[in-house]
């Protein structure tokens, strides 16, 4: 039985267990890497971005008329002899299926893989009623024998080793088996399950598609078990979520281009099957299959009408959001979902399995956007996860003290900045002579000690601005610097590096004093109202100067300003009129230098020093900037040295690293290991948050690589 932690304390204990599972760690880490490395080959010749937009639009159109599509499907399916049922919730679906079994005098049931049946805990229900249920998908059969839930939506037994499967199958066959021979283990399933198909009275399947225009179900499979399940027994029941309804075959073909590629890296699965109506069946007294289709609502019809969450119903269950997730790859699916696994699981759990099962897991997202970048139906998963957490809090009628304080402080810039200045004094006793805190005060738990922490600057950037600013009489461009809290209050030197680089380029730089935190931390804490208030303050501040660009040195601020501001005010009648003009002006440091200023190598002293690069999540995925920083390193006369997984998260994620230090530190460790495998002595990145995390980790392990903001190394070699 699935037991998901219902509070953060027991969740943390479970996470600890998972982090100690060596096999799981290795298996999932390898999977994560291999999956990402193979992806470009798998998608060769296919315009992924284009097709995903098309599919998303098609899904949205279908979701807006589900009941209509259902009626069309039902008419066509029934005309071919199928019986179509509707279940308003999981219990009703299970009852309908049990009743069909009873009416048809069924004793033995075989099943092919269905996440929807997992959702309703169908097997438990049928077994309680006395039916014998056998799963036939290899992975599902394994976890059924182990009385577990799936740990991945496509590969349900990915958490198990060949030795565990070998032991299990030895128990089933009462024979000695060689666990190294996986082919042989697979054949055990073939042999043992063959008679089960032939003896079964009823087969249960799911479906990937319910095609309205024809009344046919579409199923996408590899093992061949689903074909047997739907052919041999005299009764077939398909359990289908309403979200599987699509208008036509063309829509299915489109999805078929991405589903197998995203799920298993195949151009197409071994079998794609269309089933419609009561087909010929020799074991039925009527010579026709007793064919039933049960449509499951379980909240889907309401969800489809939700302006924000309907997006989640686009999901085609490819499982890719788990495959690329740095957290999933550390803790596995049993700790990263309830029934539905991965990023989409953190969202759907609230709607299908209630707030109790979601309240702990939903907090475990670092917002690195790896999932949304591979999602074939363009679901903004990290954003919806934060929205889901908000919905959990609202349902529980609770505001955590942390959220209350954060909102209160953040809405008031003066108070917020006052606290940051005070922090400089508070930290003094813990710092040594170095600008780092290496030993945390005692009120921190030891899990937090994986990185040294920077000191709050003695004089924030904003207080130095008067001295720093220079007059430019005939500027080529005017830029407004959006500094972000980290540079303003921790790393003013990164801001100063920028000013130094711009000297001689006829750029006027403005620093609007009323700018405040970008608001991302508020959004990450699911305090969207606060984030919106802060956004309006920033819009006003930036509007006070007439600028061509708004430049950020922080990738997280940049992508939040550019994308989330629009998102938060979408459909809001009070959205500021100048919002679009504001977001259009946002530019990151590297893009500004390479694309706007078009800096040349003559401006820099060539050193040829080897420099590694960390690509911040919010730069490469958030802002879609990948080439510019690497080019800039070379233009400035350094040698860019590639390292493994440059675009994988460093584990920072703002408050995530404080909330989940045990996971943050593991993600960081891998980042540091990869960088240390190169012969670079410097690592640069475009985000002060990543600098904080990576520099802190490097310092703690007494590593030799210097970690800097890219602006710093550019200014160092400026002639």
């Amino acid at each position, binding site marked *: 039985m699935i037991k998901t932690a219902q509070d953060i304390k027991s969740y943390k204990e479970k996470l600890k267990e998972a982090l100690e599972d060596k096999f799981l760690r290795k298996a999932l880490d390898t999977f994560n890497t291999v999956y990402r490395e193979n992806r470009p080959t798998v998608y060769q010749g296919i315009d992924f971005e284009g097709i995903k937009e098309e599919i998303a639009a098609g899904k949205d159109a279908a979701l807006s008329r589900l009941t209509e599509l259902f009626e069309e499907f039902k008419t066509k399916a029934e005309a071919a002899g199928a019986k179509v049922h509707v279940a308003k919730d999981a219990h009703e679906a299970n009852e309908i299926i049990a009743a069909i079994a009873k009416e048809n005098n069924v004793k033995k049931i075989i099943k092919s893989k269905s996440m929807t049946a997992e959702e309703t805990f169908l097997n438990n229900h049928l077994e309680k009623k006395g039916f014998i249920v056998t799963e036939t998908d290899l992975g599902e059969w394994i976890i059924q024998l182990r009385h577990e839930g799936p740990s991945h939506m496509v590969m349900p037994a990915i958490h198990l080793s060949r030795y565990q499967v070998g032991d299990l199958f030895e128990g089933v066959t009462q024979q000695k088996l060689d666990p190294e021979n996986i082919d042989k283990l697979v054949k055990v399933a073939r042999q043992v399950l063959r008679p089960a198909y032939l003896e079964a009275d009823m087969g249960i399947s799911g479906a990937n598609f319910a095609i309205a225009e024809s009344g046919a179900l579409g199923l996408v499979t590899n093992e061949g078990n689903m074909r047997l399940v739907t052919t*041999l027994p005299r009764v077939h029941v398909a359990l289908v979520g309403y979200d599987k309804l699509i208008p036509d075959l063309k829509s299915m073909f489109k999805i078929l281009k991405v589903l197998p590629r995203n799920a298993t890296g*195949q151009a197409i699965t*071994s079998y794609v099957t269309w089933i419609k*109506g009561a087909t010929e069946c020799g074991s039925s007294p009527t010579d026709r299959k007793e064919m039933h289709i049960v449509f499951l609502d379980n909240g889907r019809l309401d969800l489809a009408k939700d302006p924000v969450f309907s997006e989640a119903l686009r999901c085609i269950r490819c499982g890719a959001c788990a495959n690329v997730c740095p957290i999933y790859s550390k803790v596995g699916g049993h700790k990263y979902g309830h029934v539905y696994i991965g990023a989409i699981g953190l969202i759907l759990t609230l709607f299908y399995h209630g707030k109790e099962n979601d309240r702990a897991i939903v907090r475990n997202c670092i917002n690195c956007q790896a999932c949304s970048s591979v999602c074939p139906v363009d679901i903004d998963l990290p954003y919806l996860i934060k929205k889901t957490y908000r919905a959990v809090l609202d349902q529980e009628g609770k505001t955590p003290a942390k959220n209350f304080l954060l909102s209160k402080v953040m809405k008031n810039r003066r108070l917020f900045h006052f606290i940051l200045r005070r922090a400089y004094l508070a930290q003094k006793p813990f710092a040594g002579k170095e600008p780092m805190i290496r030993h945390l005060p005692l009120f921190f738990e030891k899990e937090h000690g994986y990185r040294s922490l920077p000191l709050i600057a003695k004089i924030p950037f904003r207080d130095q601005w008067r001295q720093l600013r220079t007059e430019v009489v005939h500027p080529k461009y005017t830029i407004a610097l959006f500094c972000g809290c980290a540079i303003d209050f921790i790393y003013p030197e990164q801001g100063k590096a920028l000013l130094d680089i711009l000297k001689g380029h006829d750029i006027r730089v403005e620093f609007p004093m009323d700018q405040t935190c970008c608001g991302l931390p508020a959004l990450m804490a699911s305090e969207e109202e606060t984030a919106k208030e802060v956004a309006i303050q920033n819009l006003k501040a930036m509007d006070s100067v007439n600028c061509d660009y708004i430049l950020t040195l922080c990738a997280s601020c940049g992508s939040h300003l550019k994308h989330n501001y629009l998102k938060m005010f979408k459909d809001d009648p009070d959205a500021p009129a100048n919002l679009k003009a504001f977001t259009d002006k946002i530019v990151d440091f590297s893009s500004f230098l390479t694309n706007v200023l078009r800096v040349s190598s003559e401006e820099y002293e060539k050193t040829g020093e080897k420099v590694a690069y960390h690509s911040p999540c919010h730069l490469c995925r958030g802002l879609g900037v990948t080439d510019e920083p690497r080019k800039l390193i070379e233009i400035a006369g350094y040698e860019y040295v590639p390292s493994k997984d440059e675009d994988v998260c460093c584990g920072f994620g703002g408050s995530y690293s404080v909330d989940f230090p045990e996971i943050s530190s593991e993600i960081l460790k891998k980042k540091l290991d990869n960088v240390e495998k190169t012969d670079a002595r410097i690592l640069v990145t475009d985000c002060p948050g990543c600098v904080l995390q990576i520099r802190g980790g490097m310092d703690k392990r007494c590593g030799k690589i210097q970690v800097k903001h890219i602006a710093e190394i550019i200014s160092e070699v400026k002639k």
Partner: protein
Amino acid sequence: MQNPDLIKRMQEKAEAVQAIVSKIIRLKDAFQYTVDVTKKQGGQTVVAAGLEAEDQALLKKQCETANLTLLDFPLRPQADKIHTALTPVDWGIAETGTLVLDSTSEDIRIATMLAETHVAVLPASKIKPDSMSLENELNAALKRDAPIYYAFITGASRTADIERVLAVGVHGPKELHILIMEENNA
């Protein structure tokens, strides 16, 4: 029409998913092939679904000569005895090396799902570039107010459920042989 590029692509893509592809000239070549493959694998039975009566009789004779049994219809009572299944298929899709087979007949389903080895005969003229180019044909079949069971088959059955290691031949056929029949152009 036979397009050599399509045939080549079909073959490459099918082989990429472990199908065994050969070329034949006449349907009769497929009979000998089926007999040989069955003998080689130590099988004793053959089924053929979707053949004309006279071809069925010819195959039966060839099986008998080779000491193999060609199972009669209906196949259900002998479902656990099938070694090799020989079937013509309706279409091929070059883009993915896929076979398209209307499997509405229960005998075709039992043959192609339960056999250890599936030998499929694909006329070269029936190879289409991609699935979209079959949309009209498939749609016409699906939209009729009649039951239907339609299949795309690409390679043998497979799984990676244990440690993500690819294993071919799980619940469906362990081997898929495709015989591309290039009609005589002369």
